[in-house]
């Protein structure tokens, strides 16, 4: 393992008072939930349910674990790819915590010249442009391979957040096979299993089968967790980092988590 001369934590949770990280994340998530709802009241077309189901996962990665940088090269930092790009309001809500966006910026969601409806990497804090489902894992593989070539792959990780509906896309499985075949253990995939896709419940639109088995059969290590339990997410992320195999965290979540009227329903708007 190369000696890391300089580690800059991009997330700033460590500067919080010495509280348990999960407790801080709980507060962060509450604030971020409020922001998502405010964005939804300003612009009704945002994907509220999906943003709320991904929020705790993203909070745990960005502020719990934190993304790290050890140098200026693109392979000298951690990456976060929101492959289910429609959940980007959750990312924006957390970028406020990181000081990359202001509360006021959030009001421009989907406005002309405002915040994009799907991730765009011209915005500081968005690593990769996504929006077309199914592509994030392949991109992660390329970044992870570049890290391997630059010998930074034991230091740095590529986190990819996918949705369960997104797993309909065949490219996800192309990439899953590539990553396992190449042994790119610096990739951590997290599937937000909220049980819904745009047109209804995943079981009605297209059943996803035994998800754990599908990944495992290709050579992935599978960790299954409650995707709203911060302690579990943090523990899974730590376990993933120590794994010699690529890891997929299957996070069971509730669409619209925290918002009773929307929770675990196919409803789109507040």
């Amino acid at each position, binding site marked *: 393992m190369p000696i890391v001369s300089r580690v800059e934590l991009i997330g700033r949770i460590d500067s919080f008072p010495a509280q348990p990280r999960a407790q801080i994340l709980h507060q962060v998530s509450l604030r971020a939930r409020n922001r998502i709802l405010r964005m939804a009241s300003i612009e009704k077309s945002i994907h509220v349910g999906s943003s709320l189901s991904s929020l705790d996962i993203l909070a745990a990665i960005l502020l719990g674990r934190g993304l790290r940088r050890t140098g200026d090269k*693109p*392979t000298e930092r951690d990456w976060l790819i929101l492959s289910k790009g429609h959940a980007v309001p959750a990312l924006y809500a957390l970028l406020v915590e990181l000081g990359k966006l202001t509360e006021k910026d959030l009001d421009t969601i989907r406005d002309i010249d405002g915040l994009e409806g799907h991730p765009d990497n011209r915005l500081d804090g968005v690593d990769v442009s996504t929006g077309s489902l199914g592509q994030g894992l392949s991109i992660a593989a390329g970044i992870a*391979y570049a890290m391997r070539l630059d010998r930074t792959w034991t230091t740095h990780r590529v986190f990819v957040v996918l949705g369960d509906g997104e797993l309909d896309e065949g490219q996800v499985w*192309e990439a899953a*096979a590539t990553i396992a075949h190449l042994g790119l253990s610096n990739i951590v995939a997290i599937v937000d299993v909220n049980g819904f896709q745009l047109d209804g419940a995943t079981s009605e639109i297209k059943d996803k089968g035994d998800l754990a088995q599908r990944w495992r059969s290709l050579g992935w290590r599978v960790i299954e967790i409650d995707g709203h339990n911060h302690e579990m997410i943090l523990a899974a992320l730590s376990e993933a980092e120590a794994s010699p195999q690529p890891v997929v965290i299957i996070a069971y979540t509730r669409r619209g988590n925290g918002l009773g009227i929307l929770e675990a329903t196919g409803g789109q708007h507040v």
Partner: protein
Amino acid sequence: MSSQLASLESLGTIRDAVGKALLRLGEEDKDVVVLTADVARSTRTRWFAERFPERFVNIGISEQDMIGFAAGLALGGKKPYAAAFAMFMMRAWEQIRNTVDRMNLNVKLIATHSGFSDHGDGASHQSLEDIALMRVLHNMTVVIPADPPQAYKAVLAIHRVKGPAYLRIGRDYSPPVTDPSAEYRLGELELLRDGEDVALVSAGPVLAHVVEAAKILEAKGLSTAVANLHTVKPIDEARLVKLAQRTGLVVVVEEHFPRGGLFGAVAETLAQRYPVPVVPVAAKGYGHSARSVIDLYERHGLMPDNIARSVAEAVEKWRKK
């Protein structure tokens, strides 16, 4: 220079030339990474794989994943070259559009076996739409070298382009048509012969037939210009306009459907800058299997005598008006 000239003349087929150019890039630039989708032998990227195994990944039969992987490499600071048959590169068009082109990533696409060149495999392998699909992309550079020396030089040229580029080559058939000692100028329309009555614009292996057709026409008293539109995007508007001004009639010959490819590029440009009749000579429909690519060229009117006849008809039609 003479030794380089000699080596350029003995490059082998057009895909051999590209394979050798990639080897050279691999030597010169440690950031070059080559990918392919289970066609390492066919695309000659296997040579790169043998020399630089660490910087080569065979992604398997999954072109969409290959494009995403290439995009990731580019984001990670590498200079990826993704090689596949032109037909199957098209399968990943949306990935190219939404991930590579939208982020303007430094990904180079090497599309082989284009047009009718994969004669034996038939219509499923013969790409007649790819120029159109790549040309519409906002950031993409589109290059179609005519013969092995030009292909070799074109690979080195697109390496200097910051952003995505699509290099379209055939399989084997590519008679010499350019001057191997000439410098390759990306983005510049290359005038192969001058003329005043009609201008023929073409690219790729079929350009050699166009040059032969021009000789036939010349013998019949038609002063015929021939231009190599090796860079379809960005297009050389100024030289195209000059050609149109001098001849007043442009015939575009291509191994592609007559929609959106070279004909589209030339017609769109001249319609805005200097409207003259522009006539396509292109694939008449899907291809099919043939023992030789020549059989397909004959069937689709792309042999020198067919081309000369089509040009003569166009001259007849438009000169009367």
